[in-house]
């Protein structure tokens, strides 16, 4: 029998969505949300490589770039570009990574810096933040930090700020040595 004719019109007939639903305790919703988050977290963590694993191994410098560079003598600032080796050495002269061309990250926290043939420096390395900052410590006194702009299985890009000849960010690109 049609409800309209019998006068049995009610809210649940007109608005089926308003039918009384069995109430769920909010604890189940919260528990479900947390369980869902935990699953997502575990999936992401197990499938993605952690930066402290990706960074391990031998890396070779392939490129140095700068936002802006001082011209040699008159102090004029030029737009960013790849610069000559001697200028690169002058800029890096105050840094731990001075004259380093090959970097080897070891799992025990040691970083071996070499110029291709002999080891120049052995420093301590660690990652900070969410794995986006590379810290280097030399002789427990000198400390430097570099921002990891990119880190993949084969390529690493480091950024750092320096005011020696360079205005802004300097960018070092590495390729992994197999």
């Amino acid at each position, binding site marked *: 029998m049609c409800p309209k004719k019998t006068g049995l019109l009610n809210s649940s007939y007109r608005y089926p969505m308003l039918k009384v639903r069995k109430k769920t305790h909010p604890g189940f919703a919260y528990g479900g949300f947390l369980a869902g*988050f935990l699953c997502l977290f575990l999936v*992401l963590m197990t499938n*993605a490589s952690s930066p*402290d694993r990706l960074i391990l191994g031998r890396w070779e410098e392939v490129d140095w770039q700068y936002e802006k560079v001082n011209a040699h003598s008159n102090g004029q600032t030029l737009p960013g570009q790849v610069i000559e080796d001697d200028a690169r050495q002058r800029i890096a002269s105050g840094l731990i990574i001075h004259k380093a061309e090959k970097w080897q990250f070891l799992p025990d926290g040691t970083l071996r810096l070499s110029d291709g043939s002999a080891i120049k420096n052995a420093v301590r390395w*660690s*990652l900070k*933040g*969410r*794995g*986006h900052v590379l810290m280097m410590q030399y002789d427990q006194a000198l400390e430097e930090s570099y921002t990891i702009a990119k880190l993949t299985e084969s390529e690493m890009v480091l950024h750092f700020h320096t005011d020696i000849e360079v205005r802004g960010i300097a960018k070092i690109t590495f390729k992994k040595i197999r």
Partner: protein
Amino acid sequence: MLRKFSNSRSLKDNIRLGVLTAFSAGMVNVVTLIIFFAFASNVTGHYAILAEEISKGEWYQVAVVMSWILLFLIGSFISNFIIINLNRRNAYVAHALPLLLEIACLLTVGIYGEYSYQGTLTETEILVAFMLFAMGLQNGLTASISNFSVKTTHLTGLTTDLGILFSMFTQRQYRTNAVLVGKAKLLVAIAVSYLTGGVVAGLLYKQLEFKVYYVVSLVIVVVILYDYSKLRLLRLFGRRHRNPLKQTTQPLASPEHELAVRDVGELV
């Protein structure tokens, strides 16, 4: 500072609470940034970083930042959960408990950092997570008991509110409005205190390193003990029979919470 709830709180109560908790939040944020290169309370920034990492497809970092944000949320959840469930039994305990949990987090990070920290990425991520949880607890507590007037780690909202208030003060009718002036005083006090806390932490870090977290714990202990000592004095001198409304100056907002209009004397 901690005993009163929502609209029974005076401007003075909120300024006291805001100044001390913002000072500690500033300290925590700066020292965490110096040691771990991550913000402990800048959740807006973490959302931006999360979006950036998603767009770059850096899923490990996505998981880490997402869990930091969730822990801040859980901290705030637990804080308010404790308050709404224990407030009727003992307001002081309900309000002090989140701060005790915060102290536990701070001491955990301080002690671990001082004696066991090796500087690995996993350690860093877990210790930053502790700090975000602690800041969530603190922000949840201050916002909850002050009827959302005091948010000690939410400087974006605070600066927005200040901008709005300062623009309102260009008109005389708003300049003479005591509630708005009080609100501006509170916000300025929080901002200055947060900044001061950050500077102090930066200076102390050179000498104390991880021990700065003990100093922050001491600041929180002052917040807890201030009201405890006042409670004892009130009980000693029997002042609780006085008209409690005389102790408050003016409400900061209209009652929104069901527990907002409770009598101060009842809480004491």
